[in-house]
Structure formats: C-alpha cells, structure tokens
C-alpha cells in the first residue's frame, strides 16, 4: 500500500468520525428528553474518540512522508503554512487547520440535524455501514487500522442498536413520528450511495464495498420492515465528499469547529 493512499484513506475515516461526532454534539442540551440527550452525547463522544485515534495515526503517517509529498498533500493555506515551517503536525492541526476541500468525509455526515427523525436516519444509515465496514477493516493488512477497527466495532454495535431501535419507534409509532421519519428517509436516501462508491484510496486498501452494500441493504430492509417503512427505490446518488467536493453545510460546521483555533492560534487554557 503506498503511503499517500493509506493517508488519504485514514483521513477519509477520521473526517467521517469527526464531522458526524461534531454535528451530533449539536444536540447537547437540546435533546427531546434527558436520557436521549445523554445517549446522543455519549455517541458523539465515541465518534470523537475514534476520530482522535485515526487523526493521531494520520499525523504520524504524514510526518514520515518525503518533503515533496508533504508540501503538495494539502491545499489549505493554514496547514500549508506550518508544514512549510518544517514542523511536525499533530491531530489538532489536521482537525482545525484544513479547509473544506481538504476534508474527505462523505456528504451524508455533514447533512443538518433538522429534527429527531433526520438525526436518527442519518445515524442509522451510517451506523449500519460502519458495523459491516469495521468488521471487514479488522482484517486489514495495516495493523493500526485493524486495531482501531477492532476497538471501534464494540462501540458501533451499541450505536447500531440504538439507531435501529429508534427507526422502529418512529416508523411504528404515532402518525406524526411515521410522517417525519418518512420525510427524512425521502430526503436522505440520495446520500447513502456514496458509502459504497470507492474513492482511489478505497480501491488501494481494497475493502469490498459491494459486499458491504449487500449486507447493508439486507439489514436496512429488515429494520424498515419491522418499522412499517418502505425502502426507497435505487436512484441518483450524491457523491464527491471523498474527493473534497462538499455541500455548503460543511462550511458552517468547520467555521464553528475551527473558529477559536483559527482566531487565536495555539491558544491553550
């Protein structure tokens, strides 16, 4: 596996975890009831923990790249500045100093919270993917990624249980809850395709996304059936996130996430 592809791949995974963890954490203090507020913030914390492990690994990888590779890897000026000063980068530099076009997360995780149903369905689609994906990633020839996958899979299992149970409560709940989850599914379905569209880095690491897609579809169908919901027909799918082409939502997320660090570089308290 070449260094560049492995690093792109690690950043893909790290960015998914960070952006989803961040957007879920927006619910903190605003949850519909206390137990669910706590459930979501615990989940956000898990995602952020996984993001940290992945960013630490990505930073270690970046710091061993040859100089020419380092100077051309990112286009964001803030991170390029410290790289050009010859400094080693760390997890915080990766999280706070890259602009949207250097982020490699899928578009699904940057879509807004909107309401409880939209939040649940985003997690449900993503958690289902993550469960099967991390199961496979445990077998990766890269031992660090395999170790992170093994660790994350335990937490992802809880996430998938929680989001599946909520899809069922909403779908098979009241008239209003069913209406809301159906609206959320109709809007967010077109972001699910990107999970299975391989980027250049995906192709190099070689996890079989088509196989994961079958498992994903089967489980989504099973939970939807329990929830009295229909699985939408396959259709046109959004993509581009893995290549750094994002929806406008990422801009707002990064502005909030990065503002303090950008305004007061290296400030500690």
């Amino acid at each position, binding site marked *: 596996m070449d260094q560049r592809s492995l690093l792109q791949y690690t950043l893909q995974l790290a960015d998914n975890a960070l952006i989803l963890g961040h957007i879920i954490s927006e619910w903190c203090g605003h949850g519909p009831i206390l*137990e669910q507020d706590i459930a979501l913030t615990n989940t956000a*914390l*898990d995602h952020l*923990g996984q993001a940290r*492990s992945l960013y630490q690994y990505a930073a270690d990888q970046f710091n061993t790249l040859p100089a020419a590779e380092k100077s051309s890897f990112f286009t964001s000026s803030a991170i390029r500045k410290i790289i050009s000063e010859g400094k080693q980068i760390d997890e915080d530099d990766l999280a706070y100093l890259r602009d949207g076009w250097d982020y490699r997360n899928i578009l699904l995780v940057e879509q807004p919270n909107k309401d409880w149903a939209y939040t649940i369905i985003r997690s449900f689609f993503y958690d289902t993917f993550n469960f099967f994906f991390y199961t496979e990633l445990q077998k990766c020839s890269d031992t660090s990624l395999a170790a992170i996958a093994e*660790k994350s899979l335990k937490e992802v299992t*809880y996430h998938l249980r*929680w989001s599946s149970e909520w899809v*069922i409560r909403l779908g098979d709940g009241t008239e209003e809850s069913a209406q809301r989850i159906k609206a959320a599914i109709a809007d967010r379905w077109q972001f699910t395709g990107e999970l299975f569209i391989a980027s250049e880095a995906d192709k190099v690491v070689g996890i079989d996304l088509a196989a994961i897609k079958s498992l994903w579809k089967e489980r989504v169908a099973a939970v939807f059936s329990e929830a009295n919901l229909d699985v939408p027909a396959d259709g046109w799918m959004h993509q581009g996130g893995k290549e750094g082409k994002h929806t406008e939502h990422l801009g707002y997320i990064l502005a909030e996430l990065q503002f303090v660090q950008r305004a007061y570089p290296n400030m500690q308290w």
Partner: protein
Amino acid sequence: MVTKEQIYGWLNTVTDPEVPVLTIIDLGIIRDVKVKDENSVEVTITPTYSGCPAMDVIAMNIRMTLLSKGIKNINIENQLSPAWTTDWMSEEGKKKLNNYGIAPPYRKATSSLGLFEDDNVPCPRCGSDNTELTSQFAATACKSLYRCNSCKEPFEHFKCH
C-alpha cells in the same frame, strides 16, 4: 534499581477519576511495564472507550505518581489491540463497584444486535432481580442506567463491553 513489581504497586494507587474506588489495575488497562534503566520507565495502557475523557487524566496521574517516586523519564504508550474488555476487570474491582452502588459487569461482552433486549442486572443496593433498563447510556460512556422495582432506587450499571 526500581522493579516492575514496585511500579505495579505504585500504579495501584492511581484511581479512575470518575469511579475513585477503582484503581487502574482493577480496570485492567495497564498492558505492560518496562523498566529501561533506573531513571526510565515505559507504561503501556489500553483505553477503555475510544472517547473516554478520563484516559488523559489517568495518563497524567500515572506520570505524576511515578515522578513523585523519583522516576525521571516516563513514556506512556497507547496500545489499541487487543481491545479492552470488561473481562479484564478484576473480581476485586467488581466487588468494589457493587459496594459503591454501581452494578458491575457480569458476563462476557457480546456483539449481539438483538433489538430491545435488556440485560437482567441485580440491584447493587437490595440485590433484587426485579430491575428495569432506563437507558443504555448514562453519565459516562461506560455505564447504563437502571431502576430497581423493589427498592425503587435508580442505579448505574458498568456495561459488559
């Protein structure tokens, strides 16, 4: 020269900041201790949950404890694999948890995706089996929330992970 046994003894005074009855030895997060020379020690730890904020505090407390014992160079390594599991918690640790009012983990971790399944957890106060899950998530990443239908008290359960 300082010995591995001495260091383990000192590490057994470092407690979990959230659950101070448990030491990091009870938790099973110390994977290895290497004495490099009379001034240098390497401690390898495995995090409990990926995002556990207590791990940074624990690492700091390990460093401060060893510094106070005269060790000058302390290297703390993180080892992710094999992944930490509650199976590594000592029996002693589980008893301490129960006495503290937190129901300890009681079975091996499972990857069951059984929906709407509850663990049957006995109440740490009155011992009754007539308990009910309130939420899979509680005040910290490692715990869930239950209520006892016998003594009517709520209690936390350290999840089987």
